[in-house]
Structure formats: C-alpha cells, structure tokens
C-alpha cells in the first residue's frame, strides 16, 4: 500500500491544479492581510509614540483571516473552502476509472490497497489545501502584529464567554488556533473525500467536483434560514465562530458521519469493484 500512497502523493504534487488552487487560496488570504492586518501598523506607531496606557494594542488573533468576520476575504475563503479543497483531487477516482488508469494499477497491486491509498491521499490533499493559505496568513500576521493574549475588555475579539473554547482563547490563544486548524484540516480532507466518493458513481465530472460545495451552500441556505446555523459547516469552520451555540459535539458528529459514509463506500467499492 505504501507504493500506492507514494504514487498518489507524487501525482498530487505534480498536478498543476494543486498549485493553482493553493495560489488562489493564498491570494485570498494575502489580500486579507494587506487590507486588514497591514493598516494596523499605523495605529501601532501611534500607540508607541504617545502614552496610551489604557489602550490595548492590536494582536494578530483578532486580525488574521480566521480571527475576524467582517472582511470580504474572510467570508470568501470560508465559503469557497469546499470548492478549493475539491478542485485538484476531487475528480481523481472518476478520471482514474474513466481513463482506465485503475486497470493498470490493479494488475500491479491489490484493489483494496489502491482504494486505501486513494482515501488517505485525498484526505491529506484536501486538508493541506484548506490549511496552507491560512498558515501563510498567520505567518504574515505574526510578523506584523504582536502575539499578545487577547483581552476581553478590549472588546475587539469575536469570541464571547458562551463561545466554544472561550477559556482557551483568552488563556492560550495559540492552542486555540492550532486546534481550529486541525478542525479545518479534517473538514478540508472530508470535502475532498466526499467528492472522490461521488466520483465512483456520478457520470458528470462537473457535478462530482461541485457537489460538496452545493451541499455546503444548501446547508448555509436551509439550516441558516431556519435557525440551525450552529450546524452549518460554514459557520463552525471559521475560528471567529460566526454564530452562537457552536459546540465540539456537532463538529465531531458531522465529521464522524462523513468519515463513516465515505469509508463505507470505499470499502464497498474495494470489495465489489469488478474492473479486471
């Protein structure tokens, strides 16, 4: 199976689409840095020059793309996230089957190993695409603004006392960010897995790539309209927690469900694939 994983990872890295999508993601996050983080420097200078002893200087935790909810880029990044994750590798199983690539692999190794490698590589491909642009934004923001522990009295932070992990955010914000990056990584991987799984059954490549986004948008529309916003991935994936009532239980249960469905389909395909 290691051999298959190596091949799959090599294919992802060699794919132009992977780099193009990373570039698009980074363009969004870097533009957020330029429009939202960089202008804070002028206020930092004022703070240093005059004696504002009661003024809390800006820290990057409330300014980076995941820490705020009022810029266009923040909205855009989290709304197109499933699409970005899926574009490079979401249709890989579909194209492998259509082009007969799987036949070549099945005479060189076990079907189960191919499907397992596909599952793992797709998951990591989506996760990397979701997280890398955010890391770029964090690095730039860290280089510009201080890493001061957020202060509730400052009133500039999006996390309230009732928000998930509020204690953590106001005591160990780095750990809060790391844990959220982990959640985003897992969901990025799951978006890709959903698309790859659909590729085994759906005949239209466009639909294969677009379907996770359509479901994501549908949840934004339906659940958001009827007052169940805390169940909508768009809302709970943003570290700024755009709505109240987000809980780890919901995030974990939805992820487990997606893992279960995609995993079962992959196991079924591995056992019942009659190619060759």
């Amino acid at each position, binding site marked *: 199976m290691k051999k298959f994983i190596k091949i799959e990872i090599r294919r992802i890295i060699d794919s132009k689409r992977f780099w193009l999508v990373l570039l698009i993601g980074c363009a969004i996050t870097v533009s957020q840095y330029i429009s939202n983080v960089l202008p804070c420097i002028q206020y930092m200078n004022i703070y240093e020059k005059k004696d504002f002893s009661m003024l809390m200087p800006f820290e990057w935790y409330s300014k980076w793309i995941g820490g705020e*909810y009022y810029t*266009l880029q923040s909205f*855009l990044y989290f709304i197109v996230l499933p*699409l970005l994750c899926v574009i490079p590798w979401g249709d890989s199983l579909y194209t492998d089957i259509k082009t007969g690539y799987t036949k070549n692999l099945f005479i060189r190794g076990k079907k189960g190993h191919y499907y397992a490698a596909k599952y793992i590589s797709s998951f990591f491909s989506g996760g990397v695409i979701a997280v890398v642009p955010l890391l770029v934004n964090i690095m730039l923001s860290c280089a510009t603004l201080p890493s001061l522990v957020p202060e509730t009295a400052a009133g500039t932070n999006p996390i309230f006392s009732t928000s998930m992990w509020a204690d953590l955010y106001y005591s160990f914000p780095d750990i809060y960010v790391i844990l959220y990056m982990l959640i985003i990584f897992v969901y990025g991987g799951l978006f890709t897995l959903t698309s790859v799984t659909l590729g085994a059954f759906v005949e239209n490549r*466009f639909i294969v790539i677009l379907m996770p986004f359509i479901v994501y948008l549908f949840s934004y529309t339906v659940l958001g309209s009827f007052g169940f916003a805390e169940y909508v991935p768009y809302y709970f994936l943003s570290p*700024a927690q755009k709505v109240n009532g987000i809980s780890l239980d919901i995030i974990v249960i939805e992820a487990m469900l997606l893992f279960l469905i995609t995993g079962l389909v992959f196991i079924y395909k591995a056992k019942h694939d009659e190619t060759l």
Partner: protein
Amino acid sequence: MKKIFYLIKHDIKDGARYNFKKYIFTVILFLVFCADVYSQYKIHTERCNVLFQPTICDYILYIFRGMREYDPNLSEAFNIPAAWFAVQLGIAYFVGNYPTKDTEGYGIQYIIRSGSKCLWVASKCIYSAIATVQFYLIGYVVVAFWALLFGRFEFSLSEDIGMYISNINAEVITDSIFVICVLVLPLLTSIAVSIFQTVLMLVVRPIYSYLAIIVIVSASAYYKTYFLPLNYSMIFRMSPIVAGGLDPYIAVIIDIFLIILTVIFGCAIIRKFDFLEKRL
C-alpha cells in the same frame, strides 16, 4: 441565420435533457425560500404583527431583496442573505458546464458543422440566457403555487409582510418600481452574469468559471458600486428604496451593454484562442 436557430433548438432540447435533475433542485430551492417566509409569517402572526397572509409579490420581494450596504465598522459579521445568495449561485449551477459540453466527444461536430465559431459562441450565450429565464420561470411558478396553497394568490404587496419579514417599506414600492427592480433587473442581471460565465468557460474550465462567479456575487454583496453588476439584482441597493442607492435605469443600460460586450468579447476570444487545447 437558419444555422443559429438550429443550434439554439438543439441546445434547448439537449440542455433540458442534460439539466433535468437541476430543475428538481431549483424547485426544492424555491420551496425552501417559500417555507422560510411562511415560517416567519407564522411567528409574526402569533405576535399579532402581521394580519394578512403573504402574496406572490411578497414572496418574490423577500427572495430578491438582497441586503443593505455593508458597513464593516459596525463590527457585525458579514453574511449574505441565504435566499439571494442561493439564487445567484443556483443560476450559475443551472447553467453549469453545458455550454462547454460541445468541446468533448461528438459535441465537436456541432462546432465544425455550425460553420462559424462565432455563431457557435452566440448560440451558447443565447442558451445561457434561456436557461436563466427557465430558472426564474420555475421559481415564479413554485412561488405562485405556494402562494395558492399557503398565502394569497394576489399580485400586491402587504405592508406588514414588508415591514416585519422583508424589512422593507412596501409603501414606497410602486408598481413600476416593483416591475423594474424586482422583476426586470434581477433577471437581466442574471442573464448578463450567466453569459459572462459562459464566455469565461471558453478560456478557463467550468469550475474556475463558477469560482469567478462566487467571487463576483460575494463582492457585489460587500461593495455597493455600479462596477459589480449583481448589485442591480438587490432591491436594497436601488435608489427608490434607499437614499444614495443605484439608479435602476442606469443599471438596465449597463446590463444591456454588458451582455453585448460579453458576446463580442466571446467572439473575439474564440477567433484568436484555441479553447479546445489551451483552456486553463
């Protein structure tokens, strides 16, 4: 001229077959919006704020109202109204990748036999416009049907519904404003954007074209400007409704100009660019 009619006829037939599942999706989408309005109406009825049931125009106004100009300084989260957002992206999904279907398999025969690549592009643009009209028609039919069952089958606006559900003063919306801002402009703007999406598909793959539409939709909701055309499909951005809004008549002219310009641009691209081989 005959050829373009043949091409359009083929596209309508083939597109209907290709998009069949998307018709169902559209119906579900509009049913959700109607149910949303109705659930809000029920809540307000219990509070005695709303006396009369929503009419067809009330439902349509709610769906196409969009949002007021966003002010980031208010520290409120930027969220686009679900109904308006889903309609705009629903149209892009509805147009989908059909216009580029002819670039694969036997579809290339259509391009060759049409005799002119420009004619082929024009037919695809017309198809996109027809698909957009179909989307709206399905939506209006669903709304009318819902209003018949759970509302009033009337073409008037209720002040109560406008005030408490759509958050809009229905008194200022005259018949002519309603026709231009709620019926004509959203449709015309959607046609312009879907033609733009189709032409963009000649240069980049459909999925990137869809991505570009998401960016335009989001940016239009964020910034109030004539340069972002989807502003025209929001009644909340129009001058008869809000002070300092956009002029609906200028918006109509820009939309028509945009449609013509995009088709000309599409023809120019296809003459110079090998879209079968070099598409990104």
